[in-house]
């Protein structure tokens, strides 16, 4: 059902000419794809992009084709629109097995999810690019998601924010337009993509954004780390804390600030009120550290001290607020107010104290206060599973804190569906482990119906599950290769994964030497051990670890141990003990071989199918050791309809570990640590 549009929505403006025709042909023969949600999903669907002559691009900037695999969740759909906007024209959209995302233009080519369809679609796409890469008047892509809200602020009074142009009620100045970058709605979209700069035609003058960001984070974070103040600062600066908090409060009025500020605003407020009671004080205009309760002259320069009411002190002296309201994100695109404000500040003090700007900053691992930068990684980041969005606060190359969220989390609050549909839906919702969840659903439904397990069926199912485990671990290896630019590993593991997915027992047994040599080679690859050893060790006493992650830290956590069928097959659990990324790699190696042994004993894999049920009502619970760990499904069905579902999966537990794993690590190590968990954002339940 491969179908192609007649013109290319993402054509580049330009009258067709011979030269442009050549370029189009070059583009067609050099398809670089940005895969959404990610290359690992395409692989799990059995798609071999290399065979279709497509290259996987690391960034949207380098991609010609936006390749969408399967249905996208609402959030991922919006993130994809931003990615699409970042791709340089000419660009094309190829949708495989799903409806075209609503926020994008219509797909240029769409096809089913299969290798043959992919090949055919690629050919169509090539023809389309070769002929229509340039158009005299291409469509604009201007999705509502990309629309930054424009708002109007007073250059002097940051708290004055209006939706319409006009003049400031306080000072009467004309309001200046700016993008509502930090606005909660727009801000969220902006964070959803992995580049800060979507391109929709804004070219502003200059280079100053880094700086802004830094100041933002100074303020966004200093309360989190408030306890460190005493360590690093003399008490003579004590009163100054209050000022910074004042800014924060002040900033709170302004709706352009960071979520972090909101969280900690109250805290800051309390501290400041405690200190505000001191009343009027006298400070030296040149030496901000000189403060007295009574008038006099400065002991350092002899100037007369000026009266100074803390309530009125909006931190003007420090010259800080202008930075605060002016940037926040890369998106608040204007610097005018910043300049205006700083002029204003210079008039009053002439000097901006670095001590005051830096004193409340949290310190890096080496004790220096550094620029903090909140950077989104994902949801389509080359080194992370697609659909997983990691927000890291970077301090140079180090991560100070981070958190992971899934944009493709499964929603279990379902309406009533027929049992058959439910099984299909659950399997489709978990593209990285469809067989495991199909099996889980079948078992739960059968149990609800009161069916006893049938050893013959269970054998085939166990073989299918183990085959999927091998494929899934190989997919993880390919992902590791992508993360570490280990091209050989990516190619080899991906090729083996594709072979494993559809293999029967004979073929799997035939793959044994190939798998063994892959594993032996990996364990002796120079640099790999150094790269993984000691990385991603979990804090002691981490609760609820499952699957390979648990077993790699020496826990005997495996649902297969309790399974009579596995006992019959001679299953024996083996575990590593170090609990770091290297142990996880070795654990997965061990499991690949164990699973291969199990398939060899169990026979041909059979896709789990629901057995005939005579009693279609009741409550059932089943547990399956999925490739990523134990998953438990509890469901209630009435007359062949599933009415309520409760899913407890490994990834829902593991995603919570990310914050601990990344904190204080170098960026590369943090990403390796997150990768070593083998998170599948699809299996996170919301």
């Amino acid at each position, binding site marked *: 059902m491969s179908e192609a549009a007649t013109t290319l929505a993402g054509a580049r403006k330009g009258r067709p000419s011979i030269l442009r025709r050549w370029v189009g042909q070059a583009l067609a023969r050099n398809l670089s794809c940005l895969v959404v949600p990610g290359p690992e999903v395409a692989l799990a669907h059995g798609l071999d992009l290399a065979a279709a002559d497509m290259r996987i691009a690391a960034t949207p900037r380098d991609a010609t084709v936006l390749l969408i695999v399967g249905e996208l969740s609402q959030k991922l759909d919006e993130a994809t629109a931003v990615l699409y906007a970042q791709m340089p024209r000419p660009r094309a959209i190829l949708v495989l097995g799903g409806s075209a995302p609503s926020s994008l233009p219509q797909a240029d080519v769409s096809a089913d999810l299969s290798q043959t369809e992919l090949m055919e679609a690629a050919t169509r796409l090539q023809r389309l690019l070769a002929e229509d890469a340039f158009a005299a008047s291409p469509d604009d892509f201007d999705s509502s998601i990309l629309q930054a809200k424009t708002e109007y602020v007073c250059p002097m009074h940051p708290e004055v924010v209006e939706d319409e142009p006009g003049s400031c009620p306080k000072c009467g100045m004309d309001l200046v337009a700016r993008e509502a970058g930090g606005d909660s709605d727009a801000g969220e979209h902006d964070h959803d993509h992995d580049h800060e700069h979507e391109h929709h035609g804004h070219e502003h003058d200059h280079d*100053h954004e880094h700086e802004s960001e830094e100041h933002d984070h100074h303020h966004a974070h200093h309360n989190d780390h408030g306890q460190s103040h005493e360590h690093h600062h003399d008490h003579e600066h004590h009163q100054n804390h209050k000022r910074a908090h004042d800014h924060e409060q002040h900033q709170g009025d302004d709706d352009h600030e960071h979520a972090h500020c909101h969280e900690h605003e109250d805290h800051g407020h309390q501290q400041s009120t405690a200190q505000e009671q001191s009343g009027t004080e006298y400070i030296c205009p040149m030496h901000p550290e000189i403060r007295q309760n009574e008038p006099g002259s400065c002991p350092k320069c002899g100037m007369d001290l000026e009266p100074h009411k803390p309530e009125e002190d909006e931190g003007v002296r420090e*010259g800080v607020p202008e930075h605060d309201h002016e940037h926040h994100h890369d998106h608040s695109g204007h610097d005018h107010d*910043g*300049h205006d404000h700083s002029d204003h500040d*210079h008039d009053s003090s002439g000097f*901006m104290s670095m001590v005051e700007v830096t004193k409340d900053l949290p310190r890096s*691992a080496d*004790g*220096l206060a550094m620029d903090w930068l909140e950077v989104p990684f994902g949801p389509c980041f080359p080194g992370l599973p697609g659909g997983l969005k990691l927000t890291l606060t970077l301090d140079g190359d180090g991560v100070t804190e981070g958190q992971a969220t899934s944009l493709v989390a499964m929603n279990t609050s379902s309406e009533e569906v027929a049992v058959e549909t439910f099984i299909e839906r659950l399997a489709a919702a978990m593209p990285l482990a469809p067989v495991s969840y199909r099996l889980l659903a079948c078992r739960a439904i059968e149990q609800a119906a009161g069916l006893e397990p049938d050893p013959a069926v269970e054998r085939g199912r166990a073989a299918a599950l183990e085959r999927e485990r091998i494929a899934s671990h190989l997919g993880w290896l390919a992902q590791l290769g992508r993360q570490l630019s280990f091209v050989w590993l990516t190619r080899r593991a991906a090729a083996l994964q594709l072979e494993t997915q559809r293999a029967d027992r004979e073929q799997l047994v035939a793959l044994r030497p190939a798998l063994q040599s892959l594993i032996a080679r990996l364990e002796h690859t120079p640099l790999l051990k150094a790269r993984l050893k000691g990385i991603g060790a979990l804090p002691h006493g981490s609760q609820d670890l499952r699957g390979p992650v648990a077993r790699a830290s020496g826990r005997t956590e495996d649902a297969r141990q309790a399974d009579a069928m596995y006992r019959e097959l001679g299953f024996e659990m083996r575990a590593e003990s170090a609990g770091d990324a290297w142990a996880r790699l070795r654990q997965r190696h061990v499991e690949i071989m164990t699973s291969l042994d199990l398939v060899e004993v169990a026979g041909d894999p059979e896709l789990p199918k629901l057995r005939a049920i005579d009693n279609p009502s009741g409550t059932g619970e089943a547990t399956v050791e999925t490739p990523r760990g134990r998953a438990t499904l509890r469901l209630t069905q009435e007359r062949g309809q599933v009415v309520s579902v409760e899913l407890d999966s490994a990834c829902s537990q593991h995603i919570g570990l990310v914050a601990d794993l990344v904190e204080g690590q170098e960026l590369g190590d943090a990403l390796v640590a997150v990768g070593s968990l083998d998170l599948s954002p699809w299996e996170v339940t919301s």
Partner: protein
Amino acid sequence: MVVQAFFVGVFGLAAIGFGVAVFRTASMVRSALALLFSQAAVGCMFLAMQAEFLGVLQIMMMATEMSIMAIFMVMFMMDPGGLGGMDMSHQKRFSIGAGAIAAATAISVALFSDWGPIVAEAPDAAMQTRELGFEMLGRSMLVFETAAITILTAMIAATAVAIPVRQPGVDTGKLDKGNGDKEQEASK
């Protein structure tokens, strides 16, 4: 001679231009790189004055040195991007005066001194490199060794000063090694 005068003049102007740009731009990275290009232009002046070894050495050393300068600028400035448009200077009038007087004095010395006879021909580059080597490891051995020891001491001292008292830092060590790095190059 005319060609030489032309190149010395052009690179001299470039050195001065970039040198002034250092203090006129608000962006710290631009400032550090302007200094780099100023120093590189000085290196090119050396080349124009047929001091090939020194010129190449200057060009090489300054690249690393000023890049490290750039990262320190970004680290230690409140406003590395220059967004705030803040003025990071003081006693401006006095400084301009001092600079002008210093330059004027030096210029008048340059113009009104009798520099004696000018040597038209310089030894060729290969000869120079060779002779400099003999100078360095012969007559000026002591100077050379003293410079090396000074650098080593400075490296150790700077690192010792920079290392935090409580927990040894990762970044700090890295950056100080950077300085050491250049110094070893210099000592060669």
